[in-house]
């Protein structure tokens, strides 16, 4: 069927409980025959027949090709056999949207054929193809002996070892804890179950339904299910709840919950999988994956992480776990990175693993920042580390990533650090045009290292030096003060004072008294002397402010007070 846009296919499952006699009109195609409505060859006119020796089914199938039409006819005949045996079968109505409207075609689901043990005994076959497609007529014999052997087999709930199958799935359901070891135990149980349940199918018998439910219950037992999420959301906290929203709760959930949150697509995939063994396999692959994931989590939080054995354990877990996001949860390789920040043991093997396992271009800032942190952890940045993070930045803009490395003083030489700073700066500036964007680019790349800032400021092109202005250093000062990092405050104060050296216009002079006030206040908080800006005070009073009334303009009046208080030459008696 041709359509000019992607077909929208909706599958509607219609479970038809068919226990009808073979003489009943079998399910066939609902669409008119594409070729002719002649009713097929003469032998087909007699239709289905039941006799003492058994049944003869006549089946008509349509398809775009000869093979497709034959397959459709076989499916119809299988359906009739299944009905004869009293097996529930499913038929499907497929709707396909086209430019001409919506067409519907009923198909017998292939599931019935899986029940068939023997090959169909074809008595007669006729296929006719034309411009509209092909139509096949089949006459299939199903003897009483066939009926006896096959129908009894369909009705049986016997499979390889039903009791063992049930026991293993029960044991899976009853497995406790959310540890790597428990997930390995679950994996083993499901491996064994796959062997014990290998001949079972998904006919909706009570036992199979029960096993299916137990499989789900076994997953519910360790997962952070929608029900548990709702309960967490409703957990009381005084007269309200802990969380304001589901998003907040999900955002703040712990690692175990995050990596065991029910993944609806997997549940759906299991539901849509035709055999129980394949369903078990899906669940088995899932718990095996979680075992590897929890190996990483447990290694990352273990008490002995900060030791060569602890790091080796983590590295082995990282290597074993498949990279990337699985089952709806984030890549576990990046879940425990922050736990390494305080580790004193050598983590060279781990940083090397990341560089080998992930190309820098494949990472975005969320993963790049913690990795850059790790690279900088030994307070040295080598060429390999720098290139990796810079490549990441070039592909997926991450100024914080390169900044993490630039914050580190030891790049193997002052000039190397300078060169790396300017390499990033040149790269980022090549993408900006507007002067304010260029200044912002500079400001965001300057490390929180006052000495380096002071040094690099002089190397910046003239047009970019104003980027490190009063506001830039005030932000740095406020951050340091808020963090109670008084040593940093003391280092930044002279840099802040130095920005006032450029105060030579009326606008700058008007704000100078306020800035002196802020400098004095911050200096007092840090127990430091405020930087001297005496020259700027006099330059303003004798320059841009000279014609203003000394006690009329508040800005000049306050500046004049500073000058008098400091006995500056520009306010001394003549």
């Amino acid at each position: 069927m041709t359509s000019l846009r992607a077909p929208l296919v909706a599958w509607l499952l219609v479970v038809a409980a068919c226990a009808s006699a073979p003489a009943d009109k079998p399910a066939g195609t609902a669409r008119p025959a594409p070729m002719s409505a002649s009713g097929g060859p003469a032998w087909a006119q007699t239709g289905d027949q039941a006799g003492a020796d058994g049944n003869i089914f006549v089946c008509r199938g349509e398809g775009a090709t000869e093979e497709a039409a034959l397959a459709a006819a076989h499916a119809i005949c299988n359906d009739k056999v299944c009905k004869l045996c009293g097996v529930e079968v499913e038929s499907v109505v497929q709707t396909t949207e086209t430019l001409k409207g919506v067409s519907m075609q009923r198909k017998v689901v292939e599931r019935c054929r899986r029940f068939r043990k023997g090959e169909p005994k074809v008595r007669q076959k006729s296929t006719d193809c034309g411009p509209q497609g092909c139509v096949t007529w089949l006459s299939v014999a199903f003897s009483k002996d066939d009926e006896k052997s096959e129908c009894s087999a369909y009705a049986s709930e016997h499979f390889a070892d039903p009791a063992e199958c049930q026991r293993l799935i029960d044991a899976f359901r009853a497995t406790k804890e959310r540890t790597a070891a428990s997930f390995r135990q679950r994996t083993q149980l499901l491996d064994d179950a796959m062997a014990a349940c290998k001949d079972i199918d998904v006919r909706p018998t009570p036992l199979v339904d029960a096993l299916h439910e137990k499989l789900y219950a076994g997953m519910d037992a360790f997962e952070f299910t929608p029900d548990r999420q709702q309960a967490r959301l409703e957990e009381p906290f005084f007269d309200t709840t802990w969380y304001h929203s589901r998003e907040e709760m999900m955002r703040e959930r712990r690692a175990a919950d995050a990596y065991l949150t029910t993944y609806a697509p997997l549940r759906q995939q299991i539901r849509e999988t035709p055999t129980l063994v394949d369903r078990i396999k899906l669940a088995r692959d899932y718990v095996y994956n979680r075992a590897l994931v929890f190996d990483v989590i447990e290694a990352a939080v273990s008490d002995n992480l900060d030791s060569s054995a602890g790091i080796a354990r983590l590295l082995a877990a990282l290597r074993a776990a498949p990279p990337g996001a699985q089952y709806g949860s984030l890549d576990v390789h990046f879940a425990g990175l922050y736990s390494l920040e305080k580790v004193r043991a050598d983590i060279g093997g781990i940083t090397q693993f990341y560089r080998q396992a992930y190309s820098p271009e494949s990472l975005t800032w969320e993963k790049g920042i913690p990795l850059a942190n790790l690279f900088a952890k030994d307070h040295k940045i080598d060429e390999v580390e720098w290139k990796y993070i810079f490549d990441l930045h070039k592909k997926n803009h991450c100024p914080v990533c390169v900044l993490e490395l630039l914050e580190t003083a030891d790049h193997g030489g002052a000039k190397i650090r300078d060169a790396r700073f300017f390499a990033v700066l040149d790269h980022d500036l090549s993408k900006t045009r507007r002067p304010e964007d260029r200044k912002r680019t500079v400001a965001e790349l300057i490390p929180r290292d006052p000495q380096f800032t002071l040094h690099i400021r002089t190397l910046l092109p003239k047009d970019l030096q104003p980027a490190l202005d009063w506001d830039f250093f005030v932000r740095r000062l406020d951050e340091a003060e808020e963090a109670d990092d008084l040593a940093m405050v003391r280092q930044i104060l002279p840099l802040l004072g130095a920005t006032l050296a450029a105060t030579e216009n009326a606008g700058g002079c008007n704000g100078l008294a306020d800035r002196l006030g802020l400098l004095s206040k911050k200096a007092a908080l840090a127990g430091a002397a405020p930087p001297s800006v005496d020259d700027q005070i006099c330059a303003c009073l004798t320059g841009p402010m000279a014609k203003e009334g000394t006690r009329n303009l508040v800005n000049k009046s306050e500046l004049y007070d500073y000058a008098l208080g400091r006995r500056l030459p520009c306010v001394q008696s003549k």
Partner: protein
Amino acid sequence: MRAIKIGFLGLMLLAPALARAADRCAWTDPGKKPRLFIDDRVVVFRDYYPPEWAACVIGQGNKDFEIQWIVGADPQAPAAETEKVHLYGGKDDAPRKAEVKLFPNHICEDEGPRRPSGKPVTTGMPGKEYVAQLVAVRVRVVASGALAPLAYTSPPIEVPCRACGSASGSLEVNPDRNEKDLVLEGEADRAWFECASRGATLALLGFGGQSSADVTTAIRPDLTLGGLEKEFSRKGDKYVLHKPLPLARLCAHGAKVWSFETWGRGELMHLGGGGRSIHELRCK
């Protein structure tokens, strides 16, 4: 008897479990020390604790701790103010910060046991200086049991409280009665003057020029009369100053217009009001 035995056995079994639970609330150095400081006359106290430890003690029912403000010289004095501070747990490495503030009205009361009584000092920015008495403020973190690692008493910090109240009086240059000379006249409330003059200096700055613009924009005085703080004399419940500014002396500068302002260290200079007065002279 049997019930008692079972109950005792239950307690015996429970005790190690409780001990283990308490052990799990391991205090780790948050990496930052408590800090007490003054920001715009507001006393601020910041304290840090590890979030994992907090999550653990919260789990044991310890959701908050108490901070007491001790105002005055006696470190054993009862708390002037108390505040409950909530703990916030978490898994992140950065220490949690608790911050509380004590505002000047809780420290610098005019009356009562917290009335400032320390040694007077001069403080404030140039031109805005004032006499203050320093009041000692301490902070005490009251925490026991599982919260014991938070217990702390700070060294005192000295908060400046205004000692003299608002300036009461005036100091200005006026024409003298002879309508030729100028005179500097001052009058101040006795109590305020005696308070404000502690450590104060007072000077009259004169600016001479040929026009009003000259003398209002000038920043280098042509005349400085210092030591005025010593020239006030007591008259009843006032302190007064009467200091002639002879025309001849002013005219000697060759200026036709003069402006005057007061300046000095400490609080006494506020008597001048902060502006400049302008006077045209009739020099011969």
